[in-house]
């Protein structure tokens, strides 16, 4: 059968492979090469070695964006996962109306980043108007604005995954714990949380990478203001490419660094939480 299947490579795989090569593999390889070049378009590139990387790391905006992104990601990942787990726990107690709550909490997730950004800009600026300032008056406002926005967007998504995880726990296990005299908190800490570790892995992974790669929300909510103080990595890379002539190579070098960080986070995080999962 293998032999017969093999002949159909051109029909089954080739269309996807061509698109994948043209729009992923080639741009990816070109991106790596160009990060070592000075260029304004692809055709006038010339080799400059590590100069772009040196420039990237000595670029204040980039370092600031890196720190801002890390701080933002840490705060958001914790708040999103704690709140969404609490919601999922509350919504799996078999109470009336839980399906309606689930519908409402999940909805913001479907709205695109640009639209979300402007919705929250209205709300936050409305609150700040009482103090006669706007969101771009202080990086603090932008930071917490982004945290709240991202929470609003991702809590519902993570909640769905946690609900699925909690519902997958065999009921006998919880009943057995109750018969053995475990109270609600003991059941939660000794049974439910360890048994939902696979969901925790997924949610941590998703929130980490989503927060780290945030772009649209950043662009719409603050556009990096004031003075690029609330620019995150993805947005900083974008402005380096398109708002600063002659810095395309540095932008590409920043993008490679960004890629390496994202890949490293994804892999380590996956490795560590996979080990903690309970076999069932």
């Amino acid at each position, binding site marked *: *059968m293998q032999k*017969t*299947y*093999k002949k*159909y490579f051109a*029909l*089954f*795989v080739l269309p*996807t492979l061509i*698109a*994948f090569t*043209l*729009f*992923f593999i080639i*741009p990816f390889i070109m*991106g790596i090469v160009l990060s070592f070049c000075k260029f304004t*378009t*692809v055709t006038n590139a010339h080799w400059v070695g590590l100069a772009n990387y040196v420039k990237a790391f000595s670029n204040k905006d980039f370092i600031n964006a890196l720190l801002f992104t890390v701080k933002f990601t840490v705060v958001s990942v914790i708040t999103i996962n704690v709140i969404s787990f609490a*919601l999922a726990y*509350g*919504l799996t*107690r*078999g*109470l009336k*109306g*839980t399906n309606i*709550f689930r519908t409402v*909490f999940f909805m913001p997730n*479907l*709205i*695109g*980043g*640009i*639209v979300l950004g*402007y*919705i929250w800009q*209205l*709300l936050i*600026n409305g609150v700040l*108007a009482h103090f006669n300032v706007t969101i771009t008056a202080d990086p603090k406002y932008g930071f917490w604005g982004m945290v709240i926005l991202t929470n609003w967007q991702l809590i*519902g998504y993570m909640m*769905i*995954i946690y*609900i699925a995880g909690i*519902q997958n726990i065999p009921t006998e296990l919880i009943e057995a714990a109750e018969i053995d005299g475990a109270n609600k908190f003991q059941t939660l800490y000794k049974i439910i949380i360890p048994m939902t570790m696979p969901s925790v892995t*997924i949610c941590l992974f998703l929130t980490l*990478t989503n927060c780290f*790669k945030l772009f*649209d929300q950043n*662009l719409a909510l603050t556009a990096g203001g004031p003075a690029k103080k609330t620019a995150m990595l*993805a947005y900083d890379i*974008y402005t380096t490419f398109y708002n600063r002539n002659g810095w*395309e190579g540095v*932008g590409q070098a920043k*993008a490679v660094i*960004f*890629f390496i960080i*994202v*890949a490293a986070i994804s*892999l380590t995080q996956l490795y560590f939480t996979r080990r903690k999962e309970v076999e069932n």
Partner: protein
Amino acid sequence: MLKKKKNKNEIIENPSVSKGTGIVITVVMTLLAVAFLFPIFLVLMNSFKNKLYISDAPFALPNSETFAGMYNYVNGIQKTGLLAAAGRSAFITICSVIVIVLLTSMAAWWITRVTCKLSTVLYYLFVFAMIVPFQMVMFTLSKVTDFLHLGNMFGIIPVYLGFGAGLSLFMFCGFIKAIPISLEEAAMIDGCTPVQTYFKVIVPMLRPTMITVAILNAMWIWNDYLLPTLVLDSEKPTIPMAVQYLRGGYGSIDMGAMMAMLVLAILPIIVFYLTCQKYIIKGVAAGAVKG
């Protein structure tokens, strides 16, 4: 006796907490639900106010002085060409999703069923693509599409196929591995060609995964801002692009038009969500478990 099968997607109502705790949870959830809906309500309310009364007092209800009727909608649609943008967004999303679901499931089947060096290498290449952030290929990808003259709503479809292939293919591979190969062997013995086997045996079994993949890709493509901005002609924007263009350069934003356009941008998503809720929530949960 046939028992009605309980829908696994619905949360079973059978309280496992005392009445008091139940009431507390319900009250907290209700407050949170109101807080979750409030931003959307706020935008809707402000879309009917005169643009001068939005930024300073977004929480004030419209009154006879500030009420603007449908003016913001009419004005905003004219300014942004939102209806045409919605048409483009719908066209790009629907076509890309169909192409992605059909072609990546076919590729996934071949890669899973044929064991050779090539299929292993391809599988890992596609998996690798999932962890690469868009900024990494942003600039070079836009150069490739310029070079190939793909800057229109037809040309962007293969771009989405190429960039979206990683996740979709990964999910299909995961599911196909679980399908027993004996079914296909039986089909082959009965005289099916691989193409017939694929469409008659595999596709019907893949349907739930196909819905999941379609929903995940539709959510991504419909809301995508950066890729169409870099690839498409700015005269012919998609919805997210049209909304972002309202902000324009350094001038002040027409808040009235902005509010109306936000409402129009959210509306189709909410309608889609409420009609296909079951599939969307299931799909997202399934997608996450596999991813």
